[in-house]
């Protein structure tokens, strides 16, 4: 985290209003084009053959009969993809390994989970493509498999990679295992801390893997010209990221691949990676035809990434007055078939809201026979928070303290060290606690079988690389082009910031998402980074445009540019020329474009290091049905520090959405496997996400502690809201029926079992 810089306080005109989003109308009329809505003349359909086994060696693969089927134009196996170097590339928290990635795109030596892609075909119709898949012969040697994280860590567990030596242990272990990596963070002296504690609580937890559950399955369409130039339309959180991955996996020149971001039908982290995209591009290169590929819902569940399931143990030592003196955590996260769970985030975020002098977190990244884990909203943090925040609730009970007061007593503040080294540089946590404490519902009476629970959560939020180009049209309207796919309203937030910066009306700004060859590199939409970092690129580009507009005004007035200021959407003479001329509006200057120097346009790029973290604190009231074990949510109140609510209605919407996903994670969602490692609930009927009738209205308390590193005080805010719900619900259920549930999901059968246990 950089040292905060400070922007002068400004009176804001359009930021903080909630106008209709610029991309709204096509989305209510059905005309917006999502990943599966693109078609091209002469297009083929691509389909994927997937593994029926959880773990097997591929003895042989014969695609001859499929290739011979009339209408089949290309068949693709791993042999068509270049081998990749085994190396972890990029910052540790989000490192990628292309040796793994290419094996996830198409299996090579082994299949590592049911649904693992093996062969892709392109044919003139979906029906022929399906028939071709049936003609492919694969000889498997079925191997023992392992799903559960604790089972995968056992010394006699079947190994996914026979040569995998755990990273992060010195000296490295001699024996291979499924443990890809060990992480440890330490602060102070935990032994001394626990020795000084009056009370110690130690608890263990498990969570099930859950899917991001976006309603739009993965979809894309690719075309390639005979000169090797390819184009791809895809539903993704990051079309630049897709370009990088596909170019690397297919050994293409990056400039030869132009990627367009389709409208995206939900993602929540799950569309930050590639599955179909390299296949569609490769099939189009091999066949010479455009190739369209879409996943079925079953393929989405079996072949794309859920987030990790986990096994965790938390130990917290506290003084009688509520001061926490020691905290220790063990987090074991499933990575799925390839290394890379978000366990590092779990280790960093778990205790981050608190000022604890002595703490340690240990994390294990563990492979197992299930789809590779992919980011899911605040990846890693909700899992560790479920364990930590549940334990804190038990600590509060043990010393007879209100759980909210316990957290207030231990709140991290600016200057409090974080477990991974730096100090907190932003406030906001205490304010969310205070907002809840003041809420009349927090002390409202409850009925029989009803309980109230609260919990908090932390998320880093992201900065990073973003680009924007702002162009002023001859009528004084502005086009703002960015490289950030809009998942949930970022066109609206960037347009608001551009309107604020330029001093023009919101409806005179037209935000667009430019393709990879039309705007500078931009990282994916994730980590709650777009309104913050892409927003900064937009504001910087607007400021360059303003400088140019001032120069044009100086030219019109024949005065020095130093004597022109920009105020309220107008160039005004200032300094020694103050009042000498009537102010010129942006529109008036734009109308004289040609005569004053030509097009008015500016680009800006940022690699931002100043995001502020997000804090969320929530409470809920539940009623447990003692006969069915069903948990009914009676009330939900979510407080979150958002820095500045640029578009308050969409800020509320993000909080509603994060809370609801957390509720699904807590109460119903899980991957269920049979004894052979087959996923048996790969559909929306049996993978039970929250529906409208499951929920009450969710109340939001927006806390605004501006981020000094952003001209308008913006902090990312889309993710922290999913962190508290699981523990809040577990705590509420405990308060309702006196049973502590430590195993997610807290579905009716589990609640019922807890109720009947003595």
């Amino acid at each position, binding site marked *: 985290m950089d040292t905060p810089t400070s922007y002068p306080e400004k009176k804001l005109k359009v930021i903080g209003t*909630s106008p*209709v*989003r610029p*991309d*709204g*109308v096509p*989305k*209510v*009329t*059905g*005309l*917006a*084009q*999502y990943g*599966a*809505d693109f*078609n091209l003349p002469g297009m083929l359909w691509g389909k994927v053959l997937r593994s029926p086994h959880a773990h097997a060696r591929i003895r042989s693969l014969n695609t001859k009969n499929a290739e011979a089927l009339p209408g089949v134009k290309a068949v693709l196996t791993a042999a068509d993809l270049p081998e990749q170097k085994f190396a972890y590339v990029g910052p540790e928290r989000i490192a990628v390994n292309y040796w793994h990635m290419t094996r996830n795109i198409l299996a090579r030596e082994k299949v590592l989970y049911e649904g693992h892609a093996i062969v892709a075909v392109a044919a003139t119709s979906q*029906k022929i493509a399906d028939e071709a898949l049936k003609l492919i012969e694969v000889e498997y040697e079925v191997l023992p498999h392992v799903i559960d994280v604790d089972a995968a860590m056992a010394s006699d567990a079947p190994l996914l990679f026979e040569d995998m030596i755990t990273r992060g242990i010195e000296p490295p272990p001699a024996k291979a295992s499924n443990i890809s990596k060990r992480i440890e963070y330490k602060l102070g002296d935990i032994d001394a801390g626990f020795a000084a504690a009056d009370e110690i609580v130690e608890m263990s937890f498990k969570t099930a893997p859950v899917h*991001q*559950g*976006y*309603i*739009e*399955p993965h979809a894309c369409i690719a075309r390639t010209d005979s000169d090797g130039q390819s184009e791809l339309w895809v539903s993704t959180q990051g079309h630049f990221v897709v370009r990088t991955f596909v170019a690397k996996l297919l050994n293409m020149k990056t400039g030869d691949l132009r990627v367009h971001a389709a*409208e*995206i*039908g*939900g*993602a*929540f982290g799950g569309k930050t990676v590639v599955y179909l995209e390299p296949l569609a591009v490769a099939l189009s290169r091999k066949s010479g035809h455009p190739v369209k590929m*879409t996943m*079925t*819902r079953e393929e989405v569940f079996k072949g794309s990434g859920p987030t990790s399931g986990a096994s965790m143990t938390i130990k917290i030592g506290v003084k009688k007055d509520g001061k926490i003196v020691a905290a220790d955590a063990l987090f074991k996260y499933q990575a799925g078939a390839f290394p890379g769970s978000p366990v590092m985030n779990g280790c960093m975020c778990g205790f981050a809201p608190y000022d604890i002098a002595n703490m340690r977190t240990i994390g294990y990244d563990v492979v197992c026979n299930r789809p590779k884990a992919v980011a899911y909203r605040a990846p890693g943090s909700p899992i560790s928070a479920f364990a930590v925040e549940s334990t804190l609730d038990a600590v509060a009970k043990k010393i007879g303290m209100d759980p909210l007061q316990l957290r207030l007593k231990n709140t991290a503040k600016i200057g409090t060290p974080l477990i991974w080294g730096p100090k907190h540089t932003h406030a906001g946590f205490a304010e969310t606690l205070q907002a809840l404490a003041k809420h009349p519902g927090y002390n409202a009476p409850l009925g029989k079988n009803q309980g109230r629970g609260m919990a908090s959560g932390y998320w880093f939020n992201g900065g990073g690389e973003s680009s924007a180009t702002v162009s002023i049209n001859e009528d004084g309207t502005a086009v703002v082009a960015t490289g950030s796919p809009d*998942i*949930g*309203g970022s066109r609206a937030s960037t347009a608001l910031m551009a309107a604020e910066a330029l001093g023009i009306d919101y409806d005179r700004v037209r935000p667009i998402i430019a393709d990879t060859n039309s705007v500078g590199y931009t990282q994916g939409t994730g980590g709650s980074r777009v309104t913050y970092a892409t927003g900064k690129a937009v504001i910087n580009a607007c400021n360059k445009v303003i400088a140019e507009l001032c120069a044009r005004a100086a030219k019109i007035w024949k005065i020095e540019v130093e004597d022109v200021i920009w105020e309220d959407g107008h160039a005004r003479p200032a300094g020694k020329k103050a009042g000498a001329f009537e102010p010129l509006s942006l529109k008036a200057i734009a109308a004289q474009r040609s005569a004053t120097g030509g097009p008015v346009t500016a680009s800006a790029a940022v690699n931002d290091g100043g995001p502020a973290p997000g804090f969320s604190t929530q409470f809920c009231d539940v009623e447990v049905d003692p006969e069915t074990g069903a948990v009914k949510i009676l009330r939900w109140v979510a407080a979150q520090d958002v820095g500045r609510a640029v*578009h308050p*209605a*969409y800020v*509320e*919407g*993000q909080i*509603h*959405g994060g*809370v*609801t*996903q957390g509720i699904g994670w807590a109460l119903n969602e899980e991957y269920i496997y049979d004894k052979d490692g087959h996923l048996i609930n790969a*559909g*929306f*009927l049996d993978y039970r*996400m*929250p*529906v*409208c*009738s*499951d*929920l009450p*209205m*969710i109340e939001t308390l927006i806390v605004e502690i501006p981020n000094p590193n952003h001209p308008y005080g913006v902090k990312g805010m889309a993710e922290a809201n999913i962190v508290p719900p699981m523990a809040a619900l577990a705590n509420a259920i405990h308060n309702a029926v006196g049973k502590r549930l430590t195993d997610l999901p807290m579905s009716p059968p589990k609640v019922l079992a807890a109720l009947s246990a003595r």
Partner: protein
Amino acid sequence: MAKHHVTTTLNGNPVEFLCETQQTLLDVLRDELHLTGTKEGCASGDCGACSVTVNGRLVCSCLMLGVEAEGKKIETIEGMANGAQLHVLQQKFLEHAALQCGICTPGMLIAAKALLECNPDPSETEVRYWLAGNLCRCTGYNKIVEAVLAAAVEMRRT
């Protein structure tokens, strides 16, 4: 096998199409008639993204065969606005920020319209149960319910 010839009324207009026996109405709408506003989220009738009305009745178009549209009146999202004039529900969804990614929105709007046609003054609970067959993963349903209730008020007034 030869394709079937189907004659239907789609968004008020006479429409003919050819389809194979196994093609669903959703397949026909999207792949044959190029009306891609109706979305596929699951193809198993669980998510409601493909909601349309058939002779006024709300159905998942993924659960109905294209040939079953013979002689029926089909309404899709593309027929909801009156030209450039948005339906009150569409307008309220925009004003209430009732969509984030927007993929469930066409199905949600079709379902909500069917609700208000049979129950012009629904309670919040009635809205929630009627829309329980339409999954949304972004919004937590808050603003969708608010938008439907607001549309109901306005539609009762006019």
